[in-house]
């Protein structure tokens, strides 16, 4: 069925189908969800990769489908559906080969025109997104939209349920698909993040917030209107920043800047606690799961009047300020066996560092994407900021997507 377009008709002619594993996964295979996975269940990741017409030459949906079946053999858990176990009601994934939903679409603009457009919400047209529920066992966890542009370029839009894995997992997922397309061979299953058993009681995490029971419709109820916008930072901007505030890195400076700006804007209600997410340096590539480090950082001083360097080094955690709350979140969720609903992104102002997520590693016909854009769907009221790498060769250009409350 064609999804109704609200105010844009730039993307039209949507066709839906399902793609699953080529091999039978088996009748009793399940993928258990850890406490951390369940804490992320109300969040979704949206990723868009734009490829120029050179990369997309000769590509049709048929010749994209065959490698997908190969790729889904490795990622069979993304092709499953949520079920609740009896009698506890804890959700898990039944790997029943149901498949990921693939959507084909056509856009009436060229790639250049699309990138020039001002409207921040246009990215939503390139990613077919539906929340999980109200029928859990009939809700796909991953949607993949392939949109053909007027100039011959294409975009790949992925909507991914965060309970499967974090943005680093999504990046691996997409890069593996690129490899499957090139070689038509499976690359071997991703390593599933270990399921840890935390029985030791832990203190309450600051980064996770309980929300009202959402039942079987996994969507966040916001108290205020949320909007996404993004802006670019050129290499020049970044090197200016770094020169001024040596030796702190760009990411920490940007976060500090934004934190201070928001604190100024919300005078009297400045956020004292923020959450910072970044890649776990101890984990190898090709891991599927929620393995990113989630640290909550508390400022004991006034953020508005603080020095940028001080704030940035607080965020960087140079003196081990801020605690890695992953185990605490896990323990909180496990306390009542996953029955309470939590949000992580937006429970406090959240910063996510995706600079080293490998966003430009995917290759189509040996060509890298022209542009890669990630955003989070379903963010709490405090908002979230993603710091993404820019397209090569200007590797240090930074683009940010922010979900911010409009007060």
């Amino acid at each position: 069925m064609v999804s109704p377009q609200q105010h844009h008709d730039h993307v039209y002619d949507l066709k839906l189908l399902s793609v699953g594993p080529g091999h039978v996964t088996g009748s009793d295979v399940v993928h258990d969800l850890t406490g951390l996975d369940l804490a992320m269940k109300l969040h979704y990741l949206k990723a868009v990769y734009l490829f120029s017409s050179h990369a997309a030459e000769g590509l049709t949906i048929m010749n994209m489908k065959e490698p997908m079946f190969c790729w889904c053999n490795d990622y069979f858990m993304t092709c499953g559906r949520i079920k609740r176990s009896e009698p506890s009601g804890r959700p898990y994934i039944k790997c029943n080969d149901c498949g990921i939903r693939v959507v084909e679409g056509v856009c009436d603009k060229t790639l250049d025109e699309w990138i020039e457009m001002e409207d921040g919400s246009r990215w939503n047209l390139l990613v077919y997104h539906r929340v999980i529920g109200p029928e859990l066992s009939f809700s796909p966890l991953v949607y993949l939209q392939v949109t053909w542009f007027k100039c011959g370029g294409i975009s790949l839009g992925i909507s991914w349920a965060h309970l499967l894995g974090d943005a680093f997992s999504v990046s691996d997922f997409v890069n593996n698909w690129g490899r499957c397309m090139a070689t038509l061979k499976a690359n071997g299953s991703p390593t599933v993040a270990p399921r840890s058993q935390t029985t030791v009681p832990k203190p309450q995490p600051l980064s996770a917030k309980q929300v009202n029971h959402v039942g079987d419709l996994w969507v966040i109820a916001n108290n205020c209107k949320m909007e996404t916008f993004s802006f670019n930072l050129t290499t020049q901007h970044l090197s200016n920043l770094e020169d001024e505030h040596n030796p702190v890195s760009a990411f920490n400076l940007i976060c500090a800047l934004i934190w201070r700006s928001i604190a100024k804007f919300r005078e009297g209600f400045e956020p004292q606690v923020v959450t910072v997410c970044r890649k776990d340096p101890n984990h190898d590539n090709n891991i599927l799961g929620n393995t990113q480090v989630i640290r909550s950082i508390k400022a004991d001083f006034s953020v508005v009047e603080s020095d940028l360097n001080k704030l940035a080094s607080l965020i960087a955690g140079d003196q081990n300020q801020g605690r890695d709350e992953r185990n605490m979140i896990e323990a909180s969720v496990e306390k009542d066996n996953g029955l309470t609903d939590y949000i992580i992104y937006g429970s406090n102002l959240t910063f996510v560092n995706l600079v080293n997520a490998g966003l430009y590693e995917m290759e189509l016909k040996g060509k890298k994407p022209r542009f890669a854009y990630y955003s989070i769907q379903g963010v709490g009221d405090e908002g979230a900021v993603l710091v993404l790498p820019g397209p090569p060769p200007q590797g240090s250009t930074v683009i940010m997507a922010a979900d911010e409350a409009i007060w």
Partner: protein
Amino acid sequence: MPPIFTDFSASCNLKYVKLGYQYLVNHILALILVPVMVGVVVEVVRLGPEEIVNLWGSLHFDLVQVLCSSFVVIFVVTVYFMSKPRSIYLVDYSCYKPPVTCRVPFATFMEHSRLNLRNNPKSVEFQMRILERSGLGEETCLPPAIHYIPPTPTMEAARGEAELVIFSAMDSLFIKTGLKPKDIDILIVNCSLFSPTPSLSAMVINKYKLRSNIKSFNLSGMGCSAGLISIDLARDLLQVHPNSNAVVVSTEIITPNYYQGKERAMLLPNCLFRMGAAAILLSNRRSERWRAKYRLVHVVRTHKGADDKAYRCVFEEEDKEGNVGISLSKDLMAIAGDALKSNITTIGPLVLPASEQILFLLTLIGRKIFNPKWKPYIPDFKQAFEHFCIHAGGRAVIDELQKNLQLSPEHVEASRMTLHRFGNTSSSSLWYEMSYIESKGRMKRGDRVWQIAFGSGFKCNSAVWKCNRTIKTPTDGPWADCIERYPVHIPEVVKL
């Protein structure tokens, strides 16, 4: 203990009596001839060679008599050989193996069903019940157009599917047999529900650049038993045309026939019918005798169309909303049983050994003359055939035939496993079943195979083949990558 023991020994005794009776009756000629031959040889040896020569001389043959009698003998022998029907050989056949990109797991089928029929939850429930009990597995395939939500059954997509399945099967047949396209004298294509203009046989002729004087036929609308009707037609043509090759292509094109409405009687085919095709090379050439796999022995066709209920039991029509679908009536099983009885009444005398025929005749006479309440004797067809290929129309069909013919699970294994792996591929399913038996290494020289197919009309058609040479397990073919996994246990109800 004693009663069971006596029962056991009684049944043992009965078994041996039965075996003895069968051996006696089936080999009666040998049993009579052997003593006679022995007697003659003993007599000849006793008489001695000079006595034999004297005996011969005393018969007073003259030249004319000798010439006339030898002329008569030669004449009779020639007439016999000329009027004997030509032997029809099945050189080889190949079945289409769908790619994994067409695979439809249960979960995907149900999810698509829910989205396509979102306003009819009862119909979706019904489809789920059917699928759970259908006997299909998770690897059956539907054509690409049906994978869309909602399906996009254009004529172009239907032609695309036809080209894909038919050309793949034919390419594979050419490789297996070394047949050149120019050597095809007769071409028969059967596809019941898709009949474009130009026909599918014209499509094949165009693709492979076949000869302009080819005898081509396209059978449509004849249901799942059309495969055997095509074999029958090929046989008749090969009687008329000496030294010829005939290629038969059996398939069913799913794309244009996927029912898009909500009537329950019409939703059943959606759950069962899947992609498939088979291409078969038949020949009457003497040179093929050595490498042919099978020889066609009998084809028996039974049509119950004269009966109105049988005629309407599988009926293509529009539902209230104008969607075209195939409506299956509730008496389908009863009518199938009836058609089967007619068919085996005709085929029985052709294939059953004398022992079974005598028993059947005696009980028939007994029922007519003495006591109509005697149970009718069901001949034991396991005596006549080593292998059975029952059209994989659905689990109910196979169960019904297994019960009626008193077959063991091993006999119907080929049918059940074909239904599990490929679904109901209509007229080509018999060939997937043959391929299963060959892949299991069970096909030996001299084995007799019985193919039975049912089709709309209502028809029941049978073909009997005799295996010409022991067949080595094939390394290619539709079962090559999965035969080790079979047979699988198929539960009564699959939990979805």
